């Protein structure tokens, strides 16, 4: 049987052997030169000094191994970060290998200060650091070559992993040892963008071979001798606690090893998943339901509506909107609703934990290594550096694997600790759908006044919905004066509002007892739907073309205009469509990028059909255009699931949905044609993992309004 710990150990020993030969360059950036381990000593000290305290290694076999500080969850960072290094290194792309970095301070996010993946930030936040790493390695290799040949470094050329000067030529691997003995340069120059060969070139993914053969290791696939599997009975209502439980039936099942209580519930630990699951189902647990047993979606909605008419915290304000509303030629009043949503990544949550006397090893597809490490240290009484995290591939994240409470990792640590054995804790799909950490439901209640030309002159906007950050360790850093910016992003900072002299955004953050979390595109997942729906309503009320209307409002925002115009042009905006079809447009800025989308829809047998989505994206410098196209397609599909299908409801405290039969997501037959156009740009890179999601729901709703005359203000969209 394939043994992961042995496999990584073998890899380790191989690296150790190379190090023993002194043929590896490894260093940290900023420019502190380091060996990647301690020569002979390294293989016997796996917990201390991670072997790869660096961003890349050049092997004596000419391989270039890139350690990525971010988690690959589909977004393609496994390819984009190596591109940055290979560009500056002039490496042979076919020799580039990739590994997830271990959890260590050196891999902290350059802006957010902890090791994490999120906010569509991996590429832009590493744009300098990874290029620097590549350039530094190149400078060392060139210097080694120059010294060997007695020529000036400036007279050396580097191409495809080969350095040459006159009649001399050597491969990276042949120079690695000599390069390793040199002091790292204080400063290296990065290439001028006109000399880029890789950056900007559509580049295929490096993780494809293992992902089409079943070889890729996700958290769910971790295995080693002695590893048990746990399935946990969690409360039926958020905040409920175990009153008592009877494990007799569960323990009598073949394969069940033990049953342990943990803070989140009762865990059945067994030889394999099936036994653990059967055991979990056989448990009789009595719960103390706690304060949320009456939770009900309809009641919550009514409460949100009540709150919307009370004064909230001002997230943005200018002028006197109440007075301006009175002077308006006409007014529009509208409520927009979005539901709670689960992320439902294809790989259900799981984490594997092995606790030793002085160590805790964790295998997990996680987006939050640093927090997981801290939380595991607390639970086990170890120091954070004694907690080793092996990041596996993530079978989707979408934010669910980035919990400030480290929920699924900390639970797995508790289970392994209580069981006294290595355990993989696995969630079922039902556990995942009912396990909380949802995109919060929101109500937006908006009053807009327009002048006699139909242009907005007053805007009063109440946003009601749970704060993601309040009550988390990130609150002190990210919540200012009670305002959780993630609740109002896309409204409070809207370019439309900036142009309106009298506006106010009020925020209400009710506490419902439902655990909530960022869900691909976070606040923008609802604010784009609201803002772009409203602008469309105003355009139609003013009898203006929706694209022309937006152009007028965004005249001082050239990048928005660029994306808007490109999408409209490529979609053939204004050109005739077959009968029964209509187009709608939406554009939204998020995570440093602007995406405009035109959706082409029809209604067939009462069902909404989306035929085509034309996207224009301005994400600054396009590092990997192929990855950008893929992420935009992905963002559209993810947004369409929410636009057309997904919702969670509560009755008597219980989540009503449980699996993909009732928590519905997009299927193949519903996927529209998606055309992606990238606005050429020399601006600094923006995000691409999330910005494709926000505009699609409003683009579809706007197209439906054009087609049917009916304005839909609630997600998922329902015609009747």
């Amino acid at each position, binding site marked *: *049987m*394939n043994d992961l710990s042995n496999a990584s150990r073998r890899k380790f020993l191989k690296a150790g052997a190379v190090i023993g030969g002194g043929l590896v360059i490894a260093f940290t950036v900023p420019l502190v030169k380091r060996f990647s381990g301690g020569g002979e000593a390294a293989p016997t000290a796996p917990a201390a000094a991670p072997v790869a305290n660096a961003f890349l290694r050049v092997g004596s076999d000419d391989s270039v191994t890139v350690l990525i500080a971010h988690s*690959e*969850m*589909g*977004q*393609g960072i496994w390819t984009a970060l190596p591109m940055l290094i290979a560009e500056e290194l002039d490496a042979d792309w076919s020799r580039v290998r990739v590994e997830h970095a271990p959890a260590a301070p050196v891999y902290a996010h350059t802006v957010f200060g902890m090791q994490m993946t999120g906010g569509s930030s991996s590429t832009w936040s590493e744009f300098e650091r990874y290029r620097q790493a590549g350039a530094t390695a190149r400078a060392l290799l060139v210097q080694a070559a120059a010294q060997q040949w007695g020529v000036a470094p400036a007279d050396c050329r580097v191409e495809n992993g080969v350095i040459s000067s006159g009649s001399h030529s050597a491969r990276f691997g042949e120079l690695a040892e000599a390069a390793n003995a040199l002091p790292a340069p204080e400063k290296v120059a990065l290439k001028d963008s006109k000399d880029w060969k890789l950056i900007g070139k559509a580049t*295929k*993914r490096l993780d*494809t*071979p*293992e*992902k*089409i*053969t*079943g*070889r*890729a*290791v*996700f958290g*769910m*696939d971790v*295995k080693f001798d002695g590893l048990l599997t746990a399935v946990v009975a969690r409360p039926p209502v958020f905040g409920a606690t175990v009153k008592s439980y009877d494990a007799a039936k569960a323990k009598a099942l*073949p394969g069940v090893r033990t049953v342990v209580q943990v803070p989140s519930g009762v865990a059945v630990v067994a*030889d*394999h*998943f*099936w036994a653990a699951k059967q055991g979990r189902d056989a448990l009789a647990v009595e719960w103390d339901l706690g304060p949320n047993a009456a939770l009900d979606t309809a009641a919550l909605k009514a409460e949100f509506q009540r709150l919307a008419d009370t004064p909230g915290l001002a997230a943005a304000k200018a002028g006197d909107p109440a007075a301006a509303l009175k002077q308006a030629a006409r007014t529009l009043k509208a409520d927009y609703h979005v539901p709670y949503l689960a992320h*439902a*990544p*294809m*790989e*259900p949550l799981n984490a594997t934990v092995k606790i030793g006397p002085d160590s805790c090893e964790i295998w997990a597809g996680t987006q939050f290594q640093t927090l997981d490490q801290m939380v595991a240290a607390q639970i086990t009484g170890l120091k954070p550096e004694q907690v080793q995290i092996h990041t596996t*591939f*993530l*079978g*989707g*994240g*979408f934010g669910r694997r980035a919990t400030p409470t480290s929920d699924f990792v900390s639970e797995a640590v508790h289970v392994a600790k209580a069981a006294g054995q290595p355990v993989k804790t*696995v969630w*079922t*799909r039902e556990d995942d759908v009912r396990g909380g950490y949802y995109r919060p439901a929101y109500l937006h209640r908006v009053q807009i006044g327009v002048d006699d030309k139909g242009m907005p002159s007053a805007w009063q906007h109440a946003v009601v919905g749970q704060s993601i950050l309040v009550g988390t360790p990130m609150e002190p850093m990210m919540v200012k004066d009670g305002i959780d910016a993630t609740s109002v992003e896309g409204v409070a900072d809207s370019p439309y509002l900036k142009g309106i002299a009298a506006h106010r955004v009020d925020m209400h953050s009710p506490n419902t007892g439902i655990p909530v979390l960022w869900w691909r595109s976070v606040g923008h997942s609802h604010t784009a739907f609201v803002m772009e729906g409203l602008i469309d309503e105003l355009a139609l009320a003013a009898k203006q073309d929706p694209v022309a209307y937006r152009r007028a409002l965004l005249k001082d925002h050239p990048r928005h205009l660029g994306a808007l115009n490109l999408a409209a042009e490529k979609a053939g905006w204004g050109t005739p469509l077959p009968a029964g079809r209509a187009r709608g447009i939406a554009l939204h800025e998020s995570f440093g990028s602007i995406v405009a989308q035109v959706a082409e829809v029809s209604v067939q047998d009462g069902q909404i059909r989306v035929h085509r989505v034309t996207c224009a994206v301005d994400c600054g410098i396009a590092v990997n255009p192929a990855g950008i196209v*893929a992420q935009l*397609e*992905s*963002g559209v*599909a*993810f947004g369409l*699931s929410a636009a057309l299908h997904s919702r969670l409801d509560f009755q008597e405290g219980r989540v009503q949905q449980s*699996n*993909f*039969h009732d928590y519905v*997501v*997009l*299927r*193949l*037959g519903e*996927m529209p*044609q*998606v055309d992606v156009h990238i606005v050429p740009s020399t601006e600094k890179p923006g995000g691409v993992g999330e910005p494709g999601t926000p505009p699609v729901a409003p683009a579809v709703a706007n197209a439906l309004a054009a087609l049917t005359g009916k304005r839909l203000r609630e997600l998922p969209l329902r015609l009747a």
Partner: protein
Amino acid sequence: MKLTVNGTAHEVDAPPDMPLLWVLRDLVGLTGTKFGCGMAQCGACTVHLDGTAMRSCVTPAAAAADKSVTTIEGLSADGSHPVQRAWAELDVVQCGYCQSGQIMSAAALLATNAKPTDADIDSALSGNLCRCGTYLRIRAAVHRAAELSKA
């Protein structure tokens, strides 16, 4: 019970109602076949049973006893099955978690329908969810695999 997986005979100690998925993953040790829903809703667990695509999460191990099971690991020795080649050519995967199931469903379709239409593909693969939304490429790659199979 006796099980033939990818041409190799295995003797496994499984209760007869244990789903084939967990026999493959936890007893045989082949983790390429994935768990996504456990109720025939997502297709991540798709394998071939005597050449027919099956959801292994709802197939009791006993039902596979005298049949030949093919998993993603056994589709080809080296990733060279036309479906895998098409998948690589079109850069289909993202997170990759659904892709074993997608590929197994596509391979089963092409085995009985050498030149599927879009509608054939949509219907044969409608049971395979992809939360990363790689659907467009999946559809294109099935067409491409059909071409590659001819060659």
